[in-house]
């Protein structure tokens, strides 16, 4: 029984370590692009900031698909497809693939805010997500 505990802990922590490494790499990249200190509280504010989605004709924010509670699953606004929780603490698959992070930043910033996110904003958001 103890072994299963230990194994699970090891797996989660190794995932956590992997995601930690990736996030740090990303943050480092953003700093070279001109970002300053990163702040989770700012990241949270960005997450909840509402914008008018032109094609949809509605106000949206990140929580519209990803849910305000990051430890819960979200739902695609249009297709209803389940979106696994963003919080790395409950979902070890999150934040451990730099390409995946950038891909979704490109798409979702453009769709939600109508423009690409700045390096500062990405860093703040990543910091916020990592803390959950």
């Amino acid at each position, binding site marked *: 029984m103890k072994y299963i505990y230990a194994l699970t802990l090891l797996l989660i922590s190794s995932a956590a370590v992997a995601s930690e490494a990736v996030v740090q790499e990303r943050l480092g990249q953003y700093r070279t692009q001109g970002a300053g200190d990163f702040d989770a509280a700012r990241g949270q504010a960005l997450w909840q900031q509402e914008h008018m989605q032109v*094609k*949809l004709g509605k106000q949206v924010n990140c929580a519209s698909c990803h849910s305000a509670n990051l430890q819960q699953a979200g739902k*695609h606004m*249009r*297709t*209803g*497809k389940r979106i696994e929780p963003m919080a790395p603490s409950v979902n070890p698959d999150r934040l451990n693939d730099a*390409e995946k992070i950038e*891909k979704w930043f*490109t*798409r*979702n910033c*453009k*769709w939600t805010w109508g423009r690409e996110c700045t390096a500062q904003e990405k860093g703040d958001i990543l910091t916020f997500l990592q803390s959950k």
Partner: protein
Amino acid sequence: MKQKKYWGILLLSGCLTLSMATLAWTEDGEGEGHERHERGFLHQAADIGPITNKAYKTECSACHFAYPAGFLPERSWVKIMNNLDDHFGENAELNDKTRLVITDYLRTHAADRLPNRFSRSMLRSVDAGATPLRISETPYFRHKHREIPARMVTGNPKVGSFSNCLSCHSGADKGSFDEHGVTIPGFRQWED
């Protein structure tokens, strides 16, 4: 009279063999061995087949069911893949490398490239000059789903729209759209 009996049996077996042989008859009779096999009735009468490209499956099932390539003509897939920044109102941009891999897969497995009975009928229902972007708007799809009332789909919170294939066609991710495997969530099994 016994002779007659034997002739009768001979005739019967001959006719049966002949009719079974016609099943092996396909249009464009000559072709490479592998292609011929794919055009044979056993292959074409089967399901549309699962998606065999990992990139397509991963990238294009993040928000919706990954639609089999054989359900749209090549020109439709090309148009979709060239406009990912406005993908039915969403932004589905991809890096060039992945985009090209997926486009290539979709093009080589499109309805006008792969002989399959779904693809053929689908193509036949679409005007040569039209480039349908939604499978659910092709006349073929509409015909197949003509008996389904709106309340079971658009008015059904467990389904939502006709684009949500997997909710009723449970074998869809294996390429199976068999009429007998249809269960509409919230309602009983659908019988044709």
